[in-house]
């Protein structure tokens, strides 16, 4: 600034005794002991204490979880030790049958098949989605004409209500439907696959619905991941003489690990919940060939009213899924920690 000839601050800025612009500490002190504010201010001041304030949002959230989850978890365990159907009076009067429901569940082939089938669907659908999404994201990596249109269109499926997707495909896949028509044109001969009533084809239809809708998500995750790659390590590798393939394999892929973790965890987590597609496409049929865990359990509870059996199966499922969740959370924590370490130089 300089310019020392003229005073840079007006006299008003000087401290003067009794300056009205300055509320003295003493005034503040009296203000505290004798508030003279309304009681609302008093309450607010109390809530503002850090040890109170920081718990404010926790009360309703924990309350909600305690209200919804805790009784249900207990109820789930309790019901599974009974033999109760919705049609048979009140649940608290139902007979206690110990582990019968569990033994029944483990001996229920339809249940075991449903579990196996669900994991099977996931095992096919998830890798497909990952590969397709990654491939498409790679193709859309560098700017080119039309890139925006492609990326916009590719994201569309994940914004559609899954039930609508199921319904939509059920229209397309009817025996004399447009899908068979397109296949016929491509093959040059009439093709009439019975997509919704053939044991194998129906499975493909359910997997197809999942892939169609959720490749959009893996695509989005990978596009964001590729866009977020730091440039300097890649440039450094180029200067050091690495070729494209080496850069991809030794630099980019390791850097993409957190993003790949997101995609894998997210998709496999969701794939175990498949419900909407079989319900709307095939209602689990033909036979039970597309019946997933969620569909079967839903039927157990609602169509067959075998609540205790359904509860036992839910518990078994919970145990199986817990292992998976434990691993998934560990992976997420580890990747987040690594990212944080990278961020801190």
């Amino acid at each position, binding site marked *: *600034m300089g310019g020392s000839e003229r*005073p*840079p*601050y*007006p006299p*008003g*800025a*000087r*401290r003067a005794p009794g*300056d009205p*612009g*300055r*509320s*003295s*500490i*003493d005034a*503040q*002190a009296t*203000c*505290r002991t004798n508030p003279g504010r309304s009681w609302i201010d008093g309450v607010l*001041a109390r809530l*503002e204490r*850090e040890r109170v304030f920081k718990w404010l949002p926790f009360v309703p959230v924990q309350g909600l979880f305690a209200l919804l989850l805790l009784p249900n978890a207990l109820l789930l365990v309790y019901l599974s030790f009974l033999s109760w159907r919705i049609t048979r009076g009140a649940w608290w009067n139902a007979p206690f049958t110990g582990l019968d429901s569990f033994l029944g569940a483990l001996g229920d082939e339809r249940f075991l098949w449903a579990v196996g089938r669900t994991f099977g669907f996931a095992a096919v659908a998830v890798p497909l989605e990952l590969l397709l999404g990654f491939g498409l994201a790679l193709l859309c990596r560098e700017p080119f004409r039309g890139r925006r249109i492609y990326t916009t269109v590719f994201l569309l499926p994940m914004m559609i209500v899954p039930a609508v997707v199921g319904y939509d495909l059920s229209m397309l896949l009817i025996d004399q439907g447009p899908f068979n028509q397109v296949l016929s044109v491509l093959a040059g001969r009439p093709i009439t696959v019975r997509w919704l009533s053939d044991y194998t084809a129906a499975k493909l239809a359910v997997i197809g619905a999942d892939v169609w809708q959720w490749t959009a998500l893996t695509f989005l995750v990978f596009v964001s991941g590729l866009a977020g790659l730091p440039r300097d390590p890649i440039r450094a590798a180029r200067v050091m003489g690495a070729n494209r393939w080496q850069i991809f394999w030794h630099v980019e892929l390791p850097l993409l690990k957190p993003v790949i973790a997101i995609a894998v965890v997210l998709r496999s987590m969701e794939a175990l919940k498949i419900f909407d597609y079989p319900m709307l496409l095939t209602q689990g049929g033909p036979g039970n060939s597309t019946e997933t865990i969620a569909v079967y359990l839903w039927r157990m509870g609602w169509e067959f009213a075998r609540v205790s059996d359904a509860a036992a199966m839910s518990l078994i499922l919970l145990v199986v899924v817990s292992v998976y969740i434990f691993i998934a959370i560990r992976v997420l924590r580890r990747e987040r920690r690594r990212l944080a370490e990278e961020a801190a130089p």
Partner: protein
Amino acid sequence: MAAVRLEGLTKLFASTRAVDAIDLAVPDGEFVVLVGPSGCGKTTTLNMIAGLETPTAGDIWIGEARVTDWEPRDRNLGMVFQSLALFPHLSVFDNIAFPLRIKKVPEADVAARVQAVAETTRIAPLLRKRPATLSGGEAQRVALARTIVVKPAVFLMDEPLSSLDAKLRVEMRTELKRLHAQLSATFIYVTHDQAEAMTMADRIVVMHQGRIHQMGPPLQIYADPANRFVAGFFGVPAMNFLDGEVVAEGSDLRFSAAGLRPKLPAPRTATRGPTTLGVRPEHVRLGDGADASPATVSLIEPLGDETLVFLDYGAPVSLVAKVDAEDKVAVGDRRPFTLRPDRLIFFDSAGGRLR
């Protein structure tokens, strides 16, 4: 009226003592600088004064009031942050008006006071801009203006100049000192930059590992450091430390290290055996004398007005001398040197000062 007093102030993070039972009294109107390396507890101390951190133990007094558990807003402080903390979603005007509006100052007065403070800090043309579009120096002034506008009794500053480039930083030092003179408010300023501390402070408080190592006016801290840490922290280049022994030679006491045997002036009583000698580069003189030691010049660093000369005298670490730039020295020259006997200070092996 707005003196600040800390009594046994302590802050524990987990089990580390970030601030360890500090006692400090800052009289009204003083410009005190808390200085120390990063992690020494100076910022934590400042945050506790501001009320942004709660002390684990001890008390804070501002004026006549014990404010230890007051909310920050009740303490009547002004604070400038390292990142300046301008609100990015508000214009410069609204940034400066923020504290006034919080205090429910009538809108007409707000405009007048913002305008006035903007004139004095020379940011009047910037009032409609957003903080993101300001240069470093401009943002700095806005942050100051925003603090001055409510005329707080105590100013807290947490490394406010660290985001500026070197030249601007030097200018702003002068600016801040002038501001302090104008406002005659109490300033508590935190920095890790010893030059900032030296140039601005009425009194320097040197902190290290959560403790106060020394308090005093800048020149006293520089000339008469309380221990080896303080001695090494102030001065560029740093003080030379020579490990050796004090030995008796006839009636004289001499310091003996490698090829070096300077005679010690005053009769020293308690010091015998292993000792560290400290001498500032400007107190090392090239040239022959009664007590000169031989050395070879191993490196020179011209500063313009002066030149740093690194002398090899047989010890693993070179001795640095600050000599006039007129004095032509070249690498490889054999130049004897002497140490100014009245400016030698001694430390024991734990770093404590020996007197």
